[in-house]
C-alpha cells in the first residue's frame, strides 16, 4: 500500500513533496523518493493520491 516515483520521468520539481499529507516524500541524491513506510496512498485523507494528482510528469505510480 504505497506509491513510488519513477525516477527516470521525474523532473524534480517538488510539487509532490509540497502536497504529501504524510511528509513521506523527500529529495535524496538528486531525485525525489517516497518513503513506503509513511505512504498511505492518501486513503481516508483525500479522494486520490495527492502526489499522482499534482505530478506534471505522471511519474507517481503504485509501487
Amino acid at each position, binding site marked *: 500500500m504505497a506509491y513510488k516515483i519513477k525516477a527516470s520521468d521525474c523532473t524534480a520539481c517538488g*510539487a509532490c513533496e*509540497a*502536497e504529501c499529507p504524510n511528509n513521506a516524500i523527500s529529495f535524496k541524491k538528486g531525485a525525489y523518493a517516497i518513503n513506503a513506510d509513511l505512504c498511505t496512498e492518501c486513503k481516508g485523507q*483525500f479522494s486520490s493520491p495527492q502526489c499522482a494528482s*499534482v505530478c506534471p510528469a505522471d511519474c507517481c505510480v503504485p509501487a
Partner: protein
Amino acid sequence: MANVISLDSILGVGELKAPAEAPPAAASGCASSSCGSSDGPADMAPEVWEKVKNHPCYSEEAHHYFARMHVAVAPACNIQCNYCNRKYDCSNESRPGVVSEKLTPDQALRKIMAVAKEIPQLSVIGIAGPGDSLAAGGKNTFKTFEMLAKKAPDLKLCLSTNGLALPDHVDTIANYNIDHVTITINMVDPEVGQHIYPWIFHDHKRWTGLDAAKILHERQMLGLEMLTSRGILVKVNSVMIPGINDEHLMDVNKAVKSRGAFLHNIMPLISDPAHGTHFGLTGQRGPTAQELKVLQDQCEGGAKLMRHCRQCRADAVGLLGEDRGSEFTIDQIEAMGEVEYDQEAARTYREHVEGERAGRHAAKAAAQADVAETIGTDVQPILIAVATKGGERINEHFGHAKEFQIYEVGPKGAKFVGHRRVDQYCEGGSGDEDALGGVLSAINDCTAVFVAKIGGCPSQNLKDAGIEPVDRFAFEYIEESALTYFKDYAERLGQGAINAREGQDAVIRTGAFTALRA
C-alpha cells in the same frame, strides 16, 4: 568580463551626449501620451510612474535602460498548459518555462548579489518559475524575497503566476512589498479555456475539461481584483493561439481592463514539435508578425498594451533582448566567493538615466512637432527595424544584431511596436547566408532597417528585397532618427521617387538560437 555593458557603451559611443535642450518644466501642455517630463507620462498617475519607471517589463521606456533577472526557485506547477512541457530543458532555448539550473533560495540570493555587482542596470528581481511561483505554497518564492528585501531593499520584486493559487497569497504579496504581479490569462470563457488547459490541481484534486477551465478562470479574476484593489500593479500576459483564442483575446483585454489591470501583454504562441508540447505535437501554429500586430492594434484603447516582451526564460539575466544567464551559473557564483551588495554603482546609473530621460522627452516632442507640421496626415505610417543594444540609440551593427526593434512611424509620431528575434548574421567576421534569409523574413514588413554599420553584401540583399538599409543615423536616438527619415520618405513618396511598401508580413522566429551552437 569583456561582455559587461559599460555605462558609456549602453548610452552611446563613448561620450555622453548632453540633452539637446532644457527639459520642459512640467508634463502639461503635451498632447502625446508618450510624452512628458521625468515626472512621467501625462496619462499616468505619479505614484504609478514611480513604480514602473525603472522596471523594464512594465515600462517600454525603461526597457531601453534597465535590466531584469529571473531566479528559477519555483520549479513546481499546479496546472498543465498545452503550450508547455515541463520535462524539457534546453540551454539554447529562449522562452518561458525553460531554465538551465534550478536554484534554492540561498543560491538565488548569492546569484542576485553576483549579478548586481556586474550589472548596475539591474533594477528588478522576478520569480517566474520555471513552474508557477505560487505553487507548492509559494514557499521558495517568499523565502527568496524575504532574504532579498533585507539584503538589497532597493531592488524591485515581482512575480509571475497562472493565478490559480493567487487568491490565497495576496496578503503575503502585499506584506512583502511585491508591487508588480504578472498573471497569465489566456481566456475569460471556460469553453475556450478547455482547449488550452488539460488539467489543473486545485483543492487537493485534479480537475479536467470545462470544470478545470471554470475554476481557473474564477480564481484568476478573483486574484486580479484582489491585487488591484490593494494598489498592486498587475500585468496580464496572454498567449495568442490562432484558431483557439486569437479573437477571444479582445474580450480578455476588456475583462482585465475593467478589473484594473495595468498592462496587457499579448505574446505569440511558441510552438515546435521539438519542444514536446501538446500544441507542438499537434502542429498548432503560432501567429505571424502581422497577425500579432493587428490583434494588438485592435486592442488599443482597452487595457494598455505591452509590446516589448521578449518571452524570456525563467532564469534570464540582463536587459530585455539579451540573456547573460550563462555567465552566472552556480559553479561560477560559488567561485566568486562572498559578494557584498553595493548600491552605489546602481544609484549612479539610475541618476544618470533620470538626467538622460529629461532631455529625451524634450527632443522627441520637438521632432514630432516638426513632422506634424510639415507632413499631411494622409501619408501611411511605415515600420522601421532598428539594430540597438539599448539606450534608445541605433548602436548595433547589422551583422551583430540578435533582434531588431520595430518602430512604427507616421504623421502622428514614432512608437515602439515590437521586436523580432533573428540569428546573428555575422559570426567570427563572415556572413551567414542562411541567417540573412532569416533576418529578411523577420523584418519583411519593414520599409527600412536602421543600423550603426552594415557590410556591402547584406546591404545589397536588403535593397533587392525592398528594404532600405540606413546607416546615416549611426549612434543617434531612434525616435528622432525615425521621424527625420519619415519626413524624407514622405517627400520622396510625394515626388514619386519611391513606392509605398504595403501588404507584407513577417515570420516570428521561435526556435533555438543558432548563435549559441558554437
